[in-house]
């Protein structure tokens, strides 16, 4: 019988003797393994984390697709099952114009994006032609959400599988670095679904909310696609008010509208009110003032507004309400909605400070106008 209670560890591992071969093996073997297989081991560890994230992304895209199909069936009363049509659309892609010769690229991008928007609208309308405009805009947004999540999943999965296939650790590093940002965005997009289904205002709608209230009891007209215009007097000044047409889910086409307004009655200043992404460490729902066109998106609307303002020498002022990406696309938070009155008084103060009686001001409420009429 071996007496396990009487083993001398110093003697077994030779801690007191540097030439013990067993101890040398314990130290040298992992070093050799890490030299030859280090990258593969790191790949395996990183793969585990990425696999979990991909599983989540897959769940998000399935949820978005299911919610979309369910919403279409409940609210559009289609004559036939819309699943096939929706599935076909999820895989549609947009090829951006070549940018080797960038002159005139904005026009090309605008054309491509608008062609896609028009196609989406017609495609959704073909599911049930009697659907009203409000419902149509909701379904188009839900379709955009489902398409975005589908595309994010496909790209991340492709990057992961390529690195695995090639057994190439450096290839997976960029993915590992950007994955937390992608996951944050994907989670925010998924959480946006209920708000758009129910027609509730989102954080991005604070600009239209402020301007929409100022438009109440005025004569309104559609000035460009899904964009509303109204005129109002304020302390002997003329106010031109502009926002996307609510309460549907749209951002309108403010670029086209500004072109028309400036051609007809050149305003002395332009004020843009929009939601802006807050920096890490900043509180949500704080406001800030600045200069320049406050409008997000792909950049074509901003380009158009900047070009018109520059040609006509019109200064652009901006008021932004800071928020996270999640706050911007999900149900408006109490803090953000509480800022509406404060922003309105900042606008009036800005007008008094920068214009004289008799001058005119173009005020644009930028953002998605879901749940926010005028």
């Amino acid at each position, binding site marked *: 019988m071996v007496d396990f209670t009487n083993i001398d560890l110093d003697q077994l591992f030779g801690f007191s003797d540097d030439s013990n071969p067993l101890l040398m093996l314990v130290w040298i073997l992992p070093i050799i393994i890490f030299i030859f297989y280090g990258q593969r081991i790191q790949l395996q560890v990183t793969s585990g984390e990425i696999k979990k994230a991909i599983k989540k992304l897959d769940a998000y895209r399935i949820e978005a697709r299911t919610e979309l199909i369910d919403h279409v069936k409940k609210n559009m009363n289609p004559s036939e099952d819309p699943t096939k049509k929706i599935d076909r659309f999820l895989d549609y892609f947009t090829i951006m114009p070549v940018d080797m010769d960038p002159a005139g690229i904005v026009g090309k991008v605008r054309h491509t994006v608008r062609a896609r928007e028009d196609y989406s609208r017609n495609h959704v309308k073909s599911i049930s032609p009697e659907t009203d405009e409000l419902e149509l805009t909701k379904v188009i947004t839900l379709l955009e959400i489902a398409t975005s999540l589908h595309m994010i999943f496909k790209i991340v999965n492709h990057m992961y599988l390529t690195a695995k296939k090639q057994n190439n650790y450096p290839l997976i590093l960029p993915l590992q670095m950007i994955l937390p940002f992608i996951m944050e965005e994907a989670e925010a997009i998924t959480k946006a679904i209920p708000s758009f289904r*129910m*027609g*509730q*205002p989102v954080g991005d709608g604070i600009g239209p*909310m402020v301007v*929409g*209230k100022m438009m*109440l009891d005025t004569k309104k007209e559609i000035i460009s696609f899904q964009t509303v215009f109204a005129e109002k007097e304020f302390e002997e000044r003329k106010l031109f008010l502009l926002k996307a047409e*609510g*309460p549907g889910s749209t951002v309108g086409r403010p670029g086209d509208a500004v072109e028309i307004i400036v051609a007809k009655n050149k305003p002395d200043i332009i004020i843009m009110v929009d939601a802006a992404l807050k920096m890490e460490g900043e509180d949500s729902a704080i406001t800030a003032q600045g200069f320049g066109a406050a409008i997000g998106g792909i950049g074509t609307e901003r380009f158009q507004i900047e070009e018109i303002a520059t040609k006509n020498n019109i200064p652009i002022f901006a008021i932004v309400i800071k928020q996270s990406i999640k706050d911007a696309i*999900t*149900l*408006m*938070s*109490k803090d*953000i*909605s*509480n800022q*509406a009155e404060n922003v309105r008084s900042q606008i009036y103060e800005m007008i008094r400070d920068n214009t004289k009686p008799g001058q005119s001001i173009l005020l644009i409420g930028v953002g998605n106008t879901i*749940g*926010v*009429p*005028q």
Partner: protein
Amino acid sequence: MFSKEKIIVAYTIEKCKACEMERKRNFKQGDYLFAETSKCDSCEGVMQIEKIFGESIEK
């Protein structure tokens, strides 16, 4: 030690256009901003939706 699950509840704030009395209730499907909803309980004025927002509560 364990953080409680938070859920977002949507609320609608109605404000009387005449006496400015405010009323908070749960959001109902079909609510949208500036819609005139009902008569004011205190002055017979018209209640208008002033705000729609979400508040998180711990489950």
